[in-house]
């Protein structure tokens, strides 16, 4: 019994179903971005926002939303990170929404995908912190007072290493739990009854993508903050 539609592709199987799903979604996203880029045009037309719903309007909406969020959370110097966060948000959102198609198991439901994304964010914010603050970045691991160093170092290291794990666990397990609920109610009575839970699933997919992006943003904001 195959666990999802993508595991029916020859040579994929259950073990690599999440890789195939992520690949298909990424290919679709890349195609969509090319269409959006073509619709954007150059010069005068690129400055005026899209009037009606199109690929371009969709990506403009997401970019504007993430840019507003990063202005609020990171501040003015966060503009440089907006492309990364917008890409992460789009990827997680579309992957989550793929799970709403009956028969599909999204790649973000698999712990392998989400932990990889969590660790990507972990390395990213550490590198940004070192780039922004230099060696002084490592000073915030040591706490405010010198005789607290043995205690603060342990606490800070644990709290930093738990971040990627909690990012990954949250995304994967919330989606898994949500799909379990939908599955149970589908088994209970298949007509009409699961509709509210599909609604809940849509809500959860959007909120979890938002939370993943927001928490990575907070981590980057904490790492790149200047002491004034």
């Amino acid at each position, binding site marked *: 019994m195959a666990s999802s539609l993508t595991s029916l592709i020859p040579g994929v199987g259950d073990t690599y179903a999440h890789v195939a799903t992520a690949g298909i979604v990424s290919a679709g996203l890349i195609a969509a971005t090319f269409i959006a880029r073509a619709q954007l045009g150059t010069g005068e037309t690129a400055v005026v926002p899209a009037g009606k719903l199109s690929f371009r309007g969709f990506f403009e909406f997401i970019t504007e939303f993430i840019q507003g*969020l990063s202005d*609020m*959370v990171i501040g003015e110097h966060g503009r440089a990170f907006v492309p990364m966060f917008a890409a992460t948000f789009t990827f997680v959102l579309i992957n989550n929404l793929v799970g709403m198609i009956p028969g599909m198991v999204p790649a973000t439901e698999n712990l392998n995908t989400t932990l990889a994304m969590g660790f990507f964010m972990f390395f990213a914010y550490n590198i940004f912190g070192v780039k922004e603050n230099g060696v002084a970045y490592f000073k915030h691991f040591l706490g405010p007072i010198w005789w607290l160093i043995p205690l603060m170092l342990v606490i800070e290291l644990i709290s930093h290493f738990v971040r990627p794990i*909690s990012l990954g*666990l*949250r995304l994967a*397990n*919330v989606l898994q*739990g949500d799909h379990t609920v939908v599955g149970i109610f589908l088994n209970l009575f298949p007509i009409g009854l699961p509709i509210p839970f599909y609604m809940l699933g849509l809500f959860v997919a959007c*909120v979890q993508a*938002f*939370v993943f992006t*927001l*928490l990575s943003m*907070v981590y980057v904001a904490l790492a790149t903050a200047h002491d004034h």
Partner: protein
Amino acid sequence: MKSTIRNILITMTAAMAATSAFAQDAAAVATSQNGMIAMAAGLAIGLAAIGGAIGQAMTAASALDGIARNPAAQSKVFTPMIIGLALIESLVIYAFVIAFFLQGKF
């Protein structure tokens, strides 16, 4: 309120102690061990849900208080509220993972 929770906890502990006292032969021991694991998984996620629900309720209540007092602050209150909710929720998800591992031990 507090004494009610304490009474429930004492009752549950007593019930679990009783099940281990009645387990005699090998088959019964295995069954009661499986029962204990099932109970532990249920308790883990149940207790975590109680704590997480209370925490998230307090977060939502104070956020709504703030918005009711100053409706213009809605967009500014929203983001920190979501961060708070996500951090509270992560503890419940840890408990969910533990419950999941426990279920795999059958």
